[in-house]
């Protein structure tokens, strides 16, 4: 995946490029199609997206670091089991934290906070990256990917919130004249919006590639 052959971000600073690639080139949602479940489920508003994103940032950095630390002592047969235990521990922490301090958000995100455990992004990065790289690189990678994830979630949540409720982060953005599209808050709206986001990304990529060619 991480082929640097095309080398379009060649800053010479490897950790920076590891960080930045999670936003576009290896965006976990739009390119790797990982973590779809929370992406679709919680993005009824931008704030939900942001919270979920930050929760993932925490879990991911935490578990990446730990996984990277213990990567050499875990035998391969129990690798996945061990990794998920580590991840689940962090998730439970987040969950308890939200319940203790941010009850409303915790309720809004419902069972999707625990489902971070099985968010393929985290396990995927743990397997593919953290279990093979140093702690520092794993940390940077985790931060990059999880921030990419967060940005995507906020974006998707923003679109759905604006069209579905006329607001963005609770602030009214579309006037009273616009009748909210309820569908945006429902599952079909989530699927369709994300589908078109993916399409738009592919389109932009293709246009950029074409421009490069000529």
């Amino acid at each position, binding site marked *: 995946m991480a082929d640097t052959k095309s080398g379009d971000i060649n800053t010479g600073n490897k950790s920076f490029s590891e960080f930045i690639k999670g936003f576009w080139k290896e965006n976990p949602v739009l390119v790797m199609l990982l973590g779809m479940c929370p992406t679709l489920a919680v993005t009824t508003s931008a704030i939900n997206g942001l919270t979920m994103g930050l929760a993932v940032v925490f879990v991911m950095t935490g578990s990446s670091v730990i996984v990277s630390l213990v990567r050499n002592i875990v035998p391969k047969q129990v690798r996945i089991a061990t990794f998920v235990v580590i991840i689940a521990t962090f998730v439970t922490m987040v969950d308890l934290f939200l319940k203790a301090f941010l009850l409303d958000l915790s309720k809004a995100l419902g069972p999707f906070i625990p489902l971070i455990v099985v968010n393929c992004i985290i396990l995927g990065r743990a397997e593919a990256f953290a279990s093979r790289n140093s702690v520092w690189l794993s940390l940077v990678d985790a931060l990059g990917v999880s921030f990419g994830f967060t940005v995507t979630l906020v974006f998707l949540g923003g679109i759905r919130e604006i069209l579905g409720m006329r607001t963005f982060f609770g602030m009214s953005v579309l006037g009273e004249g616009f009748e909210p599209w*309820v569908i945006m808050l429902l599952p079909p709206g989530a699927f369709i919006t994300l589908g078109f986001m993916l399409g738009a990304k592919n389109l932009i990529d293709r246009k950029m590639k074409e421009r490069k060619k000529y």
Partner: protein
Amino acid sequence: MSTRVKMILILTLFASISGGVLSIVYLFSSPLIEANLLEELKKSIFLVVPNAKDYDEKVIDEITYFECRDESGSTVGIALPARGNGYQGVIKLMVGLTPDLSRITGIKVLEQIETPGLGGRIGEDSFQNQFKGVQTEPAVEYVKNREPEKDTEIQAITGATISSRSIVSIINKNIQMLKDAL
């Protein structure tokens, strides 16, 4: 050390570390969480039973309800948690009743996943407030496209007959169950 022994050790170790860490976190957070939950419960109870200042949790025939008292300690009403299926999924309510269960003093929708903007409007105050003072005998009813006439009637949300009907039937069912139990 053979891989298999190592395997067993590692997994056991990680699992218990995880258990340990979490229990510590839990010990710190659980008072906060419990306080939160209690606060919420109180809020909903006091909302549906006006004048209530305190309550006792009671269980009868596996039905939990809250008997509410005012400052003087006399019973001013009963708060009954109710649940049932709505249009899309489970609806959870808190229903406030007069001590003799004859009238509703208020309701509060605690959880619901009805269609936003349609059935979801059962969560709006304008809908919930209708229930204040509604008689429960013989049963709560809903009417459509016109103003309620009788004391037992509330007006359904336009276009969301099912959700309105669900609320009404959940209330009726749970009150009936409580009545039978008492």
